[in-house]
Each structure stands twice: as C-alpha cells, then as structure tokens.
C-alpha cells in the first residue's frame, strides 16, 4: 500500500483545489510559518476518518471548511480525496487503486465515498483497520505531539501497543 495523491478543496487554507503527488521514500513538506503544512497533516487524518475535532485543532466539524480571508468569502464545503496504490491488496478491497473521499458542509452534514461510491464513515475507518494507518495509530505524529508519548500516563500509552499488536 502506498499513498499516490492527496486532493484538497476548501479544506482549511486550501481554498483552491490542490493536488499533491507522493513518491516512494521520503518527501519533505516545506514552507513558511502559517503556510498550511500542518493543515495537510490534518487533512490526511480527516480523510482517514478522524472524528474528534480537537485532533484537527478545531472545535466543530465545520471549522475545517475554508473560513474566508481578507479577500475571499467563506466556502460552503470542504472536500479531501486520498488516492492509494493497493496493488498488494493490503486494503481489503479488490482494487489496484482506491480513492477515499470525505466532504463536510456548513450544516455539519458529511459525505463519504470509496472509488466514487457513496458509503458511511464507518466503511472508511473499517478499510484502514489493522493496517497501521489512520487515527490512534502511531504513524501520524502531529506538531508538538512527539513529546506526549513520553508524558502520557502508562495506561494511556498502552493504546499504542494495542494498535501495534
């Protein structure tokens, strides 16, 4: 399983449709303070099914929709799509390529799609279960979060081990 492409539209500061191509190995995301790098991490967590707004530095689901800027109006919807190379069938669906899409509207209503077929949020989180990917996994480390594995209580730290087991 490998990430191929991430597409954002209306998600936080990504007002215009933005496509990011991933390569194998190490990719560095660079840019000035406040330019949107951590927002990319948030969009990955979100499209993989993150349900806690606070994990995305937000307080409500709608907070991830582009809120406008000095020159632009707020938008009505946020959409993120993640396209994955599934040649090795690590994801339990018989497709060589899988695209997962998530949308949220100002009303708070959400839409979820796998390869353009509407589904429930649950179907997306189930898809990634036990692959070491997605929320609660050790594989996505937020800014200023790396220290928290050390300051966590021993009982909370257990969850990481359960995820790996």
């Amino acid at each position: 399983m490998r990430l191929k492409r991430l597409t954002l539209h209306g998600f936080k500061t990504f007002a215009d449709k933005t496509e990011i191509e991933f390569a194998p190995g190490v990719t560095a995301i660079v840019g000035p303070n406040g330019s949107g790098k951590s927002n990319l991490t948030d969009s990955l967590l979100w499209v993989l099914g993150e349900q806690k707004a606070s994990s995305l530095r937000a307080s409500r689901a709608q907070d991830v929709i582009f809120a406008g800027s000095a020159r632009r109006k707020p938008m009505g919807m946020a959409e993120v799509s993640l396209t994955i190379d599934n040649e090795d069938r690590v994801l339990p669906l018989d497709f060589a390529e899988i695209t997962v899409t998530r949308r949220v509207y100002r009303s708070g209503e959400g839409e979820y799609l796998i390869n353009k077929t509407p589904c429930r949020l649950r179907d997306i989180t189930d898809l990634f279960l036990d692959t070491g990917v997605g929320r609660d996994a050790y594989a996505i480390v937020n800014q200023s979060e790396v220290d928290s594995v050390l300051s966590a209580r021993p009982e909370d730290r257990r969850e990481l081990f359960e995820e790996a087991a």
Partner: protein
Amino acid sequence: TRGVFYETYQAVSYAFSRLFTRLFGGGSTELVLTDPENILETGIEIVAQPPGKKRQSLALLSGGERALTAVALLFAFLEVRPAPFCVLDEVDAPLDGANVEKFTDLLRDFGKESQFIVITHNATTMEAAPLWYGITMQEPGISRGLSMRVPENTPPDADKTPPTE
C-alpha cells in the same frame, strides 16, 4: 490476545533499546509493565538513560533528549509493525546539528521500506529527502503547493544545522 500483546511489548522493547542506543551513541532503555500480573490492563513505563549519565526520571531529560527518545520509540513501533506511510510534523525542531544527522540517517534507512512525509524547517532533514513539496501563501490565507524534485541548491526557508565535532 494476551499473548499477542506480550509479544508485541517484548519486540517493541528490544527495538526501542536498539534504536535508542543507535541514536544516542550508547546508553540504555527499558520498557516496564506497571502491572505484569494483569497483561490486559497494565500500563507501560519508559526508562531511558543517555550514555554516561545516571538513570533518572524522563522529566529530567532535556528537550532534545526527549525528542530523540520519542523518535526511538516511534520507530520501534514502525519496525515491529511497519505502517505503509508515516507523517512526522516538525519532530526535529528541538534537535541540535549532530542529532538531526542521526535522525535523518534513520529516516533514510526506514524510507527504503515505507513512505515518509516529513514536515520540517531544517535543511539537513530536507537534504535527506529526494522529493520536496513546497507550501506557499502568496495570497494571504490561501495555501498553494508545488512539487520540487531532486534539490541541487540550498533550499529556501530552511535552518541548516551543521554537525558538531
């Protein structure tokens, strides 16, 4: 699942020790079950002793030592249960020049098997990545991305941390 948890804990414990010793050039660690009689609910304590120093509480470790210890634990999980991709958001921020080199060494090795997305301001880390994705904010409040391959020159907006002696 008792057995699986214990096996995972053992494997992570060994990997953590090995990786810590690699990153710190010595020293030792221990992962200790807080309640060994109760595998299904036990917490896990972390003990870390940098080379030449006395074994002490994690709280007394320096900012950079804590970051490096957390990286060792994180990569121990990745070694025991590889994740298809891993996102690291500025985990190198508290590291000095020598330690960033140790970190990027590890990143290169693990990057052969998994995809890594590393958000960073550090030029040493950037140079360890064959692909850069630049996020810019020319229009205030609006993020745009651009792919930059195989960097020849010094990257823009980057901290260069020369290795210490």
